[in-house]
């Protein structure tokens, strides 16, 4: 008896909405200071490596590069969330979302660079759902939205913490799986919230 949550039309509307979101967003200027200091720290750590390891490492595997990439993504994520939450003047999207089960599958990606592609997809879906939740069509009480935002902030804190750890340990599959699970929780909460708003 969960027919409210299997509306394929609504799901397609959501897909169209999320597909229309911008693929890239410029992070806030202050983010570069954080990135710079992180690069410097990781660069100092990198100097302690042996010369052989350093030569063998491909440019995209360099800790500084990975750290910068990860922080860019984090900053980008924050910027995207910030932007979406304030773009109330945009046309209101469809008010519903389909609920998908929380994924418990083992990750198919094995390192940070592979994960970033998947993370972009998570961010895109999250942005779409936040837009729906914020829209007037969602018919959610402001206090409910505030409560959901509190929970989203808790989840974001966990994502940032795990993301920082992954930047320092980019091949750690356990961390990747944890991050994926946390993103899934964020999506699940947003999907449930938008679905519940429907009468």
């Amino acid at each position, binding site marked *: 008896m969960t027919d409210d949550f299997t509306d394929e039309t609504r799901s397609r509307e959501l897909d169209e909405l999320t597909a229309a979101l911008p693929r890239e967003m410029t992070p806030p200027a202050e983010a570069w200071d954080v990135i710079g200091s992180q690069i410097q720290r990781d660069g100092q750590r990198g100097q302690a490596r042996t010369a052989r390891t350093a030569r063998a490492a491909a440019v995209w595997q360099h800790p500084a590069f990975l750290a910068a990439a990860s922080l860019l993504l984090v900053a980008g994520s924050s910027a995207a969330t910030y932007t979406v939450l304030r773009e109330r003047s945009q046309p209101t999207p469809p008010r519903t979302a389909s609920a998908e089960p929380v994924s418990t599958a083992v990750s198919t990606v094995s390192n940070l660079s592979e994960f970033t592609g998947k993370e972009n997809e998570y961010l895109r879906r999250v942005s779409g759902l936040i837009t729906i939740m914020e829209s007037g069509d969602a018919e959610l*009480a402001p206090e409910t939205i505030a409560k959901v935002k*509190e929970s989203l902030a808790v989840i974001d804190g966990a994502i940032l*913490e795990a993301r920082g750890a992954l930047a320092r340990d980019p091949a750690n599959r356990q961390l990747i799986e*944890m991050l994926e699970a946390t993103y899934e929780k964020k999506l699940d909460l947003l999907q449930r919230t938008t679905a519940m708003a429907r009468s």
Partner: protein
Amino acid sequence: MGRRALLPLLLLALPQIAAAQAKVSRSLQLNADGGVRIHALVGTVTVRGWDRDSVSVRGTLGAGNRLHAGGSGIGVKMFVEAENERRPAPSTLEIMVPMRAKVWIKTATADVAVSGVSGSLDVYVISGTIDISGNPADVNAEAIDGNILVRGSPGLVRARSASGTVSLRGASRDATLSTVSGRITIDGSSTPRGVFERARFESVTGDISFQGGIERGADLRFDTHSGMVDIVLPARGADLEVTTISGTIRNEASSARPLVGRYGRGAELTTSVGDGGAGVQVRTFRGAITIRRAK
């Protein structure tokens, strides 16, 4: 204005308040295994299963509210329409349903209590508590800002909250409990014969505690970012696979000691306790993990 001055005014207002509310009493025919859909915005909804092929609704509607109800033997649907949907007045509904009915309840800010229903149960609450007792075939309970309590042994249970607690006092062969910041409590001590066969317990910052029976060949998974995990294994034991990125593992269930994690950080513990035969996987980012064993 003092309290003594307020009292007469309150007494004068009482009849108007009473008049604004309306008593409701309706009965509808429904097959023993029919479906019931209940939609109420604010107040309390109490549903009880009974041994009759009918639905009975009694209660008090808030000012301006109207109850709409109808259906056939296959299914009954009812909802409370509020005069002001932005600020609906609370209603109190007590609904008797055939015990084998399939019940679906959706509310905004309401406390929902269900007991004595053995059919399937779907309860959705934005802000309010969900209290389910008995042994429904399956339970799906969702809250955004509310606590969920399931007392009994449903065949399947899915209970999800965001900031609320999620508790299962009993057992279920197929259980998924999740919350963001609330606590997850699984206490099977009151149902010693109840066992878990497939279970997922997930939080972000909420603590998780488990005590219950585990079927041989079971697959139980605990996952949290920073919540503490406290597991009391049944006396028979289990096969453990415990991982934390930066938390601690305390094993009081056997003499095995955790090792440094495979990526050079955190801790891991892979061991069989007792006879083993059931998989228990625990994963945290920085939450402390304690494993114990029932005597």
